């Protein structure tokens, strides 16, 4: 087996005799990460679509398809980054956000949006309090909250669908229409408002992560909670903040979802928890916390959308699509781990 002796040339002076070359490709992949995949998928898309990939209508449909997932990701990132893995109550935050927005449509359009976002803030505070202050297990607690709130919605609204135009009184029919239109507005007739909002949310999230004390503290908390505690960082406050940001982002996504579907109910948002988590992990964020970037996360979201789009161009059926998606995602996650290991970072 390893009988072969490698001949190491080590006739060297004192300083750094042991430094050696490291794998170039791993270094590149580690830096660029998911964006290499994004570029590869774009090239693939060009080929399979015979040049129609970069038409405005196709780009538009890619962005629209990932807009909601992207909005969730821009907030869920903080939960993963803080070392709390994922938030299982994302679906119900989306649903509740939409329900509250439509229920409050009689306070006018702005009132409805604020009500939706406020719902996200409250859910974030509850999660943050339980996980940051009471140190509940993040997965179990959010899973339980998801069930609990879904029960609350079903009981209070008796499992009914909520339609804005039915709830709105005469004076507020305009608000209802305006509410529905937010998911159907195209800025300059080209880019959907949803995609713009997603991009803005990513930019804000990126600024929070890289330019504030909160982002830096969360990095240490995510890497090692005890170290953060013994460095005088107020962990509770930072974790609550992370969950509140997450709640706000999820509820915004929920509002857009309700507007897109033209109704709100307890089942809005189902599946978005895992879609978003997949995109985050594709972007190279570590599930254990403390590692990852907003740029990478955005890449993960794009890769998610691009792959779907490419597969549609190829003309695969839904079942085959799942299969190919699974294989590609496994490959990307493996590449992440592999390059980290080659660089001695994992």
């Amino acid at each position, binding site marked *: 087996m390893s009988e072969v*002796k490698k001949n*190491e040339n080590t006739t060297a002076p004192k300083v750094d*005799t042991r430094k050696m070359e490291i794998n170039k490709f791993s270094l590149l992949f580690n830096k660029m990460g998911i964006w290499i995949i994004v570029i590869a998928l774009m090239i693939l898309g060009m080929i399979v679509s015979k040049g129609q990939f970069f038409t405005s209508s196709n780009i538009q449909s890619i962005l629209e398809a990932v807009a909601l997932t992207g909005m969730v990701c821009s907030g869920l990132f903080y939960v993963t980054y803080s070392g709390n893995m994922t938030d299982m109550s994302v679906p119900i935050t989306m649903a509740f956000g939409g329900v509250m927005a439509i229920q409050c449509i009689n306070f006018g359009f702005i009132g409805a949006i604020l009500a939706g976002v406020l719902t996200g803030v409250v859910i974030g505070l509850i999660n943050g309090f339980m996980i940051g202050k009471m140190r509940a297990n993040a997965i179990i607690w959010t899973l339980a909250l998801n069930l609990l709130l879904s029960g609350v919605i079903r009981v209070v609204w008796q499992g009914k669908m909520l339609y804005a135009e039915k709830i709105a009184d005469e004076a507020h029919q305009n608000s209802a229409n305006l509410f529905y239109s937010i998911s159907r507005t195209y800025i300059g007739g080209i880019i959907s408002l949803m995609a713009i909002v997603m991009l803005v949310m990513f930019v804000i999230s990126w600024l929070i992560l890289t330019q504030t004390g909160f982002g830096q503290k969360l990095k240490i908390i995510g890497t090692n909670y005890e170290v953060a505690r*013994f460095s*005088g*960082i107020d962990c509770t406050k930072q974790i609550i903040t992370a969950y509140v940001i997450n709640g706000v982002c999820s509820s915004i996504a929920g509002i857009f979802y309700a507007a897109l579907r033209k109704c709100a109910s307890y089942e809005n948002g189902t599946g978005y928890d895992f879609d978003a988590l997949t995109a985050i992990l594709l972007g190279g964020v570590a599930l254990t916390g403390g590692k990852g970037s907003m740029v990478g996360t955005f890449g993960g979201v794009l890769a998610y959308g691009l792959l779907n789009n490419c597969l549609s161009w190829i003309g695969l059926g839904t079942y085959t699509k799942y299969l190919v998606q699974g294989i590609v995602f496994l490959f990307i996650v493996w590449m992440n781990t592999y390059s980290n290991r080659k660089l001695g*970072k994992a």
Partner: protein
Amino acid sequence: MSNEVYALDMQKVSKRFPGTLAVDQVDFRVKKGEVHALMGENGAGKSTLMKMLNGLFNDYTGDIYINGEKKLLHSPSLAKEAGIGMVYQELSLARRISIYENLLVGRLPKKNALFIDKKKAIEESKKLLARVGLDYIDPTKDISEISQCEAQLVEIAKVLGFNPSIIVMDEPTSALSSEEVNRLYGIIRQLKAEGLAIVYISHHLAEIFEIADNVTVMRDGKLVGSLPVTETNPDHLVEMMVGTPVQNFYKDHETKIQDEVVLSAHDFTRWGFFHHVDFELHKGEVLAICGLAGAGRTEIARGLIGVDKTDGGTVKIHGKEVHFKNFGEAIANGLGYLTEDRKVVGLALNQTVADNVTTCIIDKYSKGILFKPSSLNNLVDEKINEMSVYPADRNRLVGSFSGGNQQKVLMAKWLASEVDILILDEPTRGVDVNAKQVIHNVVKNYVSKGNSVILLSSDLPEVVGLADRAVILREGHIIGEIQKKDMTENSILMAANGEGEFVKCQK
């Protein structure tokens, strides 16, 4: 090579990690019935060499002969079969299951296909425990119910269960008191008499001269030399490890204590951990709190910084009474705490040096909510240069540094925080001679600027060398005080055991 058959013979072994050649063409031989010490600074490659022996790498190069037979040690199970037993520095016992289950892990005797023969397992465990002098212990107890020292011996018993011909002990005494160390020596001598080859890794020179027959020194992944203990002395060994002769450690320490009391504790109590503790810390003073393991030193520190709730008493900083609700408040009031275990609560190993050094000062250097990590680069560089961290690269992951340099980074973190009272909990545990000297010099420098230090250390030479005054803690009570002039390793040890002239009161 002679015709003599070695128990272990490693020839020209090398192991490369991404970016480094950690072990470089090393020859290492151990005879039967010999205690062979392996020494070197942190990062010299000792641990890597021993991990190789324990089968943790499948890509080493070179040949390993066990009892004259060539073996491939590509997995831990192969190493076990070849007769190699490893006693780790950090205990590898599962704390919440019983001793016998730990001892016989992976080979519990079975009654039939399904059930475990508990009776036989307990009998077998008793035999193993008897070999390490623990015949009085009930093997059905959980590991968490026995003392650290006993756990260390159980660990050795566990290794003996595999009938090894070579036992590797990595810093086996790091958590033991001196009494317990002597007990361990007895067992080592007995194993040696049974014909086992023992590889003994330690930073404590005194231990080497006490127990080892031969010593091998490594530096920068290479073999420096191998010689009988009788042919060397501590200075010579240190010189071999470091590469240059080291001057005497503690000679230039001048005390510049001022009368001003910066921190005082009165009647400070946390029931069950420490009781009615009184002490005063002066400006420019290094105050050691000495005591045996479990005397409550760390608990006092945790109480002072507000991490643990305390039950009574007053703490004053600069004459003002304080009640910290969390550590952040303590730091804001100028009280820092360098934690004992750098890997668990000291450093975020997966982050860079810069991230670690700045953890305590994020709020201090924030403008509103805004914080720019790169604005602190100069400060970070200054501190890691002051600590002579090698390599001095602020963007390197802390986990990739050797133990000594990690400890320097931890110290740099507290220097950067600019607190004026610093509690140092085992500031040099498990670090090499060179790093130790750097850290000691920095501590001296720190107090000479009018700061104060509370030193919690079980390293007696360190206490004698650094401290200006020592208070003695025994079972949570302060039982005496020793001034600088009376301080020797012996007087401290006696007092810590509750004996001698410096003990004022038995609790």
